[in-house]
Each structure stands twice: as structure tokens, then as C-alpha cells.
């Protein structure tokens, strides 16, 4: 593919995605309903959110080499802070977003400053521990704020009307699409900037960066905060798509899913991470639907149990990819197009 | 360059290194290093700092990824795991001694014991009587010289070790201790072949017979130690200023 053909292809794809809510087309097997059905748009919106989220994770993991196991915390910050401001304190959406933005900068700054005192696996463990603290906090429902296991439901009157209701799913879908594009643009700009090149140098050899007179700690902290902040932004859009906050997004299992997405798509490539996030969310959703089909339900238990567990299938797929395809799906596609 | 650069393929060659290449990251650390070590005595591996001497030893042992060929008594070893190479009679005394700080002296030695090999505790304790007295002491609390003794003792312990790779054994040691180490190496050379990396050229001069000099990842000189040291211009060219007038 020449760069020019690729540009045209991408432009067409983008136009199709923008126009999707107006396309009354049913693709059997791919989606449950027609392309313009709210269910389809919601699923696609979630796919975009996870594509963007995987991308933010790839910034720290793929580009700086920081194996964080606490990324869910920052996504959940976007989800919960916004939800609390809207429902518990009845703030307007702009005010809620402003608060979320502040928290989404301060929290990773403080926690990152502590966590980055460690490297490698100890760093991973510490980020995991902090994320776990966040999860405990949300689950314990302090002062009746977070709703514990119930989560927080956005009422109809908490949001501007164009974002509420099944009929307006297409608006939220567009918001998710814009989110993906904006996050991609920021991430692209960041990794191709001078600090972005320092990040990649840190990933290859941190000591050498230190020898050059640069302080790796500050660069790592910068990447950590940027990535966390963007993750919070994706959390806000997730909240809009889901119509509420659920504590599942705070768990370590959720971070592990992010890890699977990035490895699935290919570590250290922007579009690979996006692809991984989209494919993961799509499979997770569609595999549940597949599990409920009569043909699977009628299988004997030995086959039925594994096939009806999306996480089992994704876990196995993940292991196979790590063992045999270190470049992920992105690497596979690139090899195919090169060969 | 001397004619002896040709890797000696003669029957008395115990270790033959051929076209050894090592990359670390993007740096080409060793670029086709070839040399032979004759059976018996001490061969010196010399050169300035950072030219690849330690890397060569680690490459021979398979502690780092490398390409090329390493023949030990005629057997190709580059496909073997480190422990398999070692079990063919190669002992390693690393630059930083690498004694196990949390283990006692006695445990350090016991770890080096190899099943089936005759153990030379007599020799080890004769050379380093201190180790016997400090058997129960944690190796991490020993002085640098004592740690060097532990490292040398580990290498000498197994009777079936035929070649010792010794990396800068006198580095950072007091003159008195240096003499002790030199004496020990001389004794060791009576029972095994030694490939010695040494920055202290007066020590090297007094111990070694054959010399291999590395420069920027390549062999720049091989030959007799007198040939190199006896010619100040040659020594300076290959070893730098330090060669003139010792340290």
C-alpha cells in the first residue's frame, strides 16, 4: 500500500464511520441489528472508547516501557468523579467536567510520583496496590456516594438532553468517535515530539538517558500523567455510553483486560493498540451473544463451558499471541502487507 | 600485526575462539575476535578499558548472546548452556568477584562443588588459610581481598577444571593482597590453564607467557609477552600510556 492509497482508505473509513448512524444496513453475524440501530451504535461507541483507552495504556506501557497494573484507576476516575458531580452534587456537565479534569491531573501526579520511585516489576506491583485501594474505596460506598456494588446511575435530568435516551445514541456515538480521534491525535503528537523520543529512549535504556543529562524520572512522570489524564477522558465518554458508573471498571481485572487489548493489537504501535481495544471489546460482547446461541448451548459440558466464557477464550488467545506472535495483530497485519 | 593472529589450531590449543561477535543493544562490542589459548600456563588478555575483554570471557561462557565459534579441547561449545560449558571444565572468576554476599564462605564453596569432580579443599585452604577461619562468616562482610580469595577458591575447588577465566583479580586490592593473589595464580597455573584479564601490567608481565591484546572489539596483537613489553613503542600503541612505566 502506498501512503497515498492508505490516506484515501482512511478518509473513506472515517466518512463511513461518521455517516454510520444513517446507514440502514444489516450485516448478519457481525452485529445484532442494523448499523443504525442504537444497540449497534452503542457497541461501536464502546469499541471506540476501549480503542482510545488501550491507546492511553500503550503510551505508558508500549512507549515508555512502564508496566502499570493500575491504569483502571484513572479510567475509573473519569467515570466516577463525573458521575458523582452530576448525580450527588447536581453540578452542570461543564462544571463536572472541570472537576474531573482537575482530579485527573492531580491524582496521577501524586500517585505517579510515589510509584515511579520503583522500577519494573516492583513498579507494577505498587501501581496495582494503589488501584486496588481505589477499588476498595468505591466498593465500600463511603458516605453513600459511590453506591458500592450497585454503582451510580445517571438520571435523565443530569445531562443535557441531546446526550440522553435511546434516540440520541447516535450523538453519544459521535462523541466517542471524536474522543478516539482526539486521543489518537494527542498520542501521535506526543510520541513524535522530543519528549516522546526520550520516552522511547527510556524504554530501550534508561541509564543512557540519565547519562545524557536528562532526568528520566520527570519524563516518566510526564508520560504517566498524560496517559492517566487521557484515560480519565475516555472514562467520561464511557459513562455517557453506559448511562452510569459500575465498580467493575475499578478492578484489577479491568486493568488486566487493558493489558490484553494492547498486547492483542501490538505493543508500542498507536493504531495497533486502538485495533486491540476495538477487537477486544467487540469479541467480549459478541462472544457472549455467541455463547447464548442454541448451537453452543446444545454442546456437551466439556465444550460448552469453555466456549461460553469470553474471558477464557480471550485469555487463551492472549497466551497464544504472547508465545507465538509477539507483535500482536498489528504485527501480523504489517507482515502480511509487507510480504 | 603479528603472524600469530592466525588462531592456533595446533594440538596444544585448549581454547580456540573464532570470529566471536557480540552485540549489546546496537553497539557492536566484539567484532570477529579470534585467538587461541595454549594448554598450560597463563595467557593474558590485555587492552585498554572498555575494549571488550570482559565481554570476551562472558561470551566464551555463554553468559551473553554471541555468534562465532568457541572450541574447548576441540569441542564446539557455542550451542551449549552456560552450566554445560562450565561442566566441561571451565571456571570463571568474574571482575567484581560476584561472591554470594548473603551466603557464608563455606556455603559459597559448597555451591561450587560439582558432583563427580575430585574436590581440592586441601589446596584451597593451603592457598587461603583465612577462608577456613572465616568459614561461617557471610561473604558480604569480607574485605575485597578476602572476597577475591573466595572467588578464586570456587574456581580451584573442582579438580576437573581445566581452564580458569580470571577477570582482573587484583583490581582495587592493596599491594600485599595483590602479591598473595599473584602467588595463588602462579600455583593455579601449575594445575590448570588460565586466561587472565589484567589491567595491572606489571602483574600481567610477571605472570603471563602468551598475550592477546584487544582494541575496540578486535584483536590487535597476539604474541609473546616479552615481544610486547620489550618494545615500548609497540606496548604504547596497543596498551596506551599506562604501558610505559607501569601503573
Amino acid at each position, binding site marked *: 500500500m502506498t501512503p497515498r492509497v492508505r490516506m484515501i482508505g482512511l478518509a473513506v473509513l472515517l466518512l463511513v464511520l461518521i455517516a454510520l448512524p444513517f446507514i440502514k444496513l444489516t450485516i448478519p453475524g457481525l452485529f445484532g441489528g442494523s448499523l443504525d440501530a442504537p444497540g449497534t451504535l452503542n457497541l461501536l461507541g464502546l469499541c471506540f472508547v476501549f480503542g482510545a483507552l488501550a491507546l492511553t495504556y500503550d503510551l505508558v506501557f508500549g512507549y515508555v516501557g512502564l508496566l502499570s497494573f493500575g491504569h483502571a484507576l484513572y479510567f475509573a476516575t473519569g467515570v466516577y468523579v463525573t458521575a458523582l458531580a452530576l448525580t450527588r452534587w447536581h453540578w452542570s456537565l461543564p462544571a463536572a467536567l472541570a472537576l474531573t479534569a482537575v482530579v485527573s491531573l492531580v491524582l496521577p501526579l501524586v500517585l505517579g510520583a510515589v510509584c515511579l520511585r520503583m522500577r519494573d516489576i*516492583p513498579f507494577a506491583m505498587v501501581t496495582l496496590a494503589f488501584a486496588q*485501594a481505589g477499588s476498595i474505596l468505591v466498593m465500600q460506598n463511603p458516605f453513600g456516594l459511590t453506591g458500592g456494588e450497585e454503582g451510580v446511575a445517571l438520571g435523565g435530568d443530569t445531562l443535557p438532553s441531546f446526550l440522553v435516551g435511546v434516540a440520541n445514541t447516535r450523538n453519544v456515538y459521535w462523541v466517542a468517535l471524536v474522543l478516539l480521534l482526539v486521543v489518537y491525535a494527542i498520542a501521535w503528537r506526543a510520541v513524535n515530539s522530543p519528549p516522546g523520543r526520550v520516552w522511547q529512549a527510556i524504554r530501550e535504556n534508561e541509564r543512557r538517558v540519565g547519562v545524557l543529562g536528562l532526568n528520566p524520572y520527570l519524563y516518566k512522570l510526564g508520560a504517566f500523567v498524560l496517559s492517566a489524564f487521557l484515560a480519565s477522558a475516555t472514562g467520561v465518554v464511557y459513562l455517557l455510553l453506559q448511562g452510569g458508573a459500575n465498580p467493575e471498571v475499578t478492578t484489577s481485572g479491568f486493568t488486566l483486560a487493558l493489558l490484553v487489548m494492547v498486547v492483542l493489537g501490538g505493543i508500542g504501535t498507536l493504531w495497533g493498540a486502538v485495533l486491540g481495544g476495538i477487537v477486544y471489546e467487540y469479541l467480549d460482547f459478541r462472544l457472549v451473544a455467541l455463547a447464548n446461541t442454541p448451537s453452543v448451548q446444545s454442546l456437551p459440558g466439556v465444550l460448552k463451558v469453555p466456549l461460553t466464557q469470553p474471558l477464557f477464550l480471550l485469555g487463551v488467545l492472549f497466551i497464544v499471541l504472547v508465545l507465538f506472535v509477539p507483535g500482536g495483530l498489528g504485527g501480523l497485519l504489517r507482515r502480511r502487507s509487507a510480504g | 600485526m603479528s603472524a600469530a593472529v592466525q588462531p592456533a589450531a595446533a594440538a596444544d590449543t585448549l581454547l580456540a575462539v573464532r570470529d566471536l561477535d557480540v552485540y549489546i543493544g546496537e553497539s557492536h562490542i566484539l567484532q570477529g575476535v579470534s585467538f587461541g589459548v595454549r594448554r598450560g600456563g597463563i595467557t593474558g588478555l590485555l587492552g585498554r578499558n572498555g575494549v571488550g575483554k570482559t565481554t570476551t570471557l562472558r561470551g566464551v561462557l555463554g553468559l551473553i548472546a554471541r555468534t562465532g565459534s568457541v572450541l574447548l579441547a576441540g569441542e564446539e561449545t557455542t550451542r551449549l548452556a552456560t552450566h554445560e560449558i562450565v561442566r566441561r571444565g571451565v571456571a570463571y572468576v568474574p571482575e567484581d568477584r560476584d561472591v554470594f554476599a548473603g551466603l557464608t564462605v563455606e556455603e559459597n564453596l559448597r555451591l561450587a562443588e560439582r558432583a563427580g569432580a575430585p574436590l581440592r579443599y586441601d589446596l584451597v585452604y593451603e592457598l587461603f588459610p583465612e577462608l577456613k577461619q572465616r568459614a561461617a562468616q557471610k561473604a558480604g562482610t569480607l574485605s575485597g581481598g578476602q572476597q577475591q580469595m573466595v572467588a578464586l577458591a570456587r574456581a580451584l575447588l573442582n579438580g576437573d577444571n581445566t581452564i580458569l577465566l580470571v577477570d582482573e583479580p587484583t583490581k582495587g586490592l592493596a599491594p600485599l593482597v595483590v602479591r598473595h593473589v599473584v602467588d595463588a595464580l602462579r600455583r593455579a597455573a601449575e594445575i590448570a590453564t588460565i586466561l587472565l584479564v589484567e589491567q595491572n601490567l606489571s602483574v600481567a608481565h610477571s605472570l603471563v607467557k602468551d598475550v592477546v591484546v584487544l582494541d575496540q572489539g578486535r584483536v590487535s596483537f597476539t604474541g609473546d609477552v616479552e615481544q610486547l613489553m620489550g618494545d615500548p613503542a609497540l606496548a604504547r600503541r596497543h596498551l596506551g600510556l599506562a604501558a610505559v612505566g607501569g601503573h
Partner: protein
Amino acid sequence: MTTIALLLITGLGLGALYFLIAAGLSLIWGLMRVLNFAHGAFFTVAAYAGWSAGRLAGGASPDLQWLIAVVVAVVVGGVFATLTEVVLIRPLYARHVGQVLVTVGLALATISLVQGGFGSDPQRLALPAWMTNTTTVLGANIPNTRMLVIVVALIVFALLLFFLQRTRFGLIVRAGVENRAMVQALGIDVQRAFTLVFAIGGMAAGLAGMLAGTYYGSIDPGRGSAMLIFAFIVVIIGGLGSVTGSAVAAVVVGELQQFLNFYGAAGVGDFSVVLLLAIVLLIRPGGFSGAST
């Protein structure tokens, strides 16, 4: 006083469970630099295997059933861990992140499989009557299961110390935690030590799985992962690679959690444990790293 005695012993019991998980994690990390997320899967799979075996032996006395369950859990934990090391970890030699990732995948896959096979609801464990009784200590009625868990963990601790201090394999493990390359350079096949620490870690985790079931009276698919996170914290506070450190840290974490969850609001204890970790890291960024004793 009564409450304090109860909390002390309950916290000690919790610490005992953490220790059983953390000891293996710590050795695996120390020797191989692998953060083993599959440890929670060893715990869970072994617990369900033990529980199933106990039910199959339905005709036997409750004591024997329990014993069968524990033995099966230990064996299954050990075998599962050994297979994991040989099949998944070994091919990724020198790819540390890859090794961590496969353990993540394995954890996700096996735990969801257990969930699919047995359901996500807790399964009650039939325990011998003497275990469900209580013993009065300092005026407090302590469930006997607490004592049992503590005693078993103490025995395991003693066995591990014996193994590390008195056997050649233990010597190799201790040396390998310090400097793996030098162990190889002494002609020792470090790979075998890897398999061995995985096997030991898996057995301890399997034992923990069954003992946690005994402690709580039931097993469920999520507990392994939940306890794993606290075990990670124990490992860092105790010093990566140190079994004694893990034991001390496990007790501290267990007690802290128990007391603060009781005297503070629910969850305060869990939260404080994470805070403790942050403080430890701020004081000593490397954690309390020590020798593997």
C-alpha cells in the same frame, strides 16, 4: 481484652494465608524476576480440585474427607504450577514482560473456566465438627479453623526454612536470588531450580486455597485473585525474595487489616494496608529487599 484476643488470632490466621501465597511469589520473583499473576489461579484451581475430591470421598469420615481435599489441593497446585513453568514460562526465557503476560492470560482463562464450570456462587465446605467448634483463649471464643490455619502455616514456614538453609537446592535458590548468572557460571543448571520454586510455590498456594476455604467455610472463584493482591503487597513489604520477610509482613498486614476493619469502618483496614505499602516505599524505595532467608 476478649475482642483484642479474637482480632489478634483472626488477623494471625489471615496473615497465615497471605504468607502461604506470598512465600512462593517471593521466591519466584527473587529467582526468576517473574511476577506470577497465575498464583491466584493455582490457589483457585487447587481449592476446587480439593473440594471436588472431598465430595467424591463422601463415604469417608469428615476428617478423612478434609485431609483428602487438602492433599489433592496441594498436589494439584504443585502439578499445575510445574506445568505452567515448563510449558508457558520456559519458552519465554529472557522475555520478562512476556512471562508476566502469559501468567496474566493464564489467570484470566483458568479463573473464568472455574467460574463457568462451578458457577460464581460460593460453594460450602463440609468441615469436621471439631473445626467448627471454638476454643476459649483469653476469654474469647476462637474458631478452631483459625488455629488450624496458623499451625499449618507455621509448619510450612519451618519446612521452607529447612529447605532453604539445609538442602543443596535451597542453597542454589538462595544464591540464585542474589546472582543468577554466577550460579550458572558455577556449572549449576538454574532451570531446574526455576521449576522447583514454581512447584513449591504452587503447592503452598494450593494449600492456601484449601485452608482459605476452611477459614471462610466456603470457596469461590474470586477469592484467589483478591488475596493475591494483598500477597503482592506482603511480598514488597517483606522484601522480594525473602521468605522470612514475607512471614513478618504477612502477619503485619493481616493484623492491620483485621484491627482497622473492626475499629474503623469496613474497608479501612484494606485501605490502610495500601497506605502502609506507600509509606514503606517512600522510606525505602527498593522495598525491604533482603537475602532469601
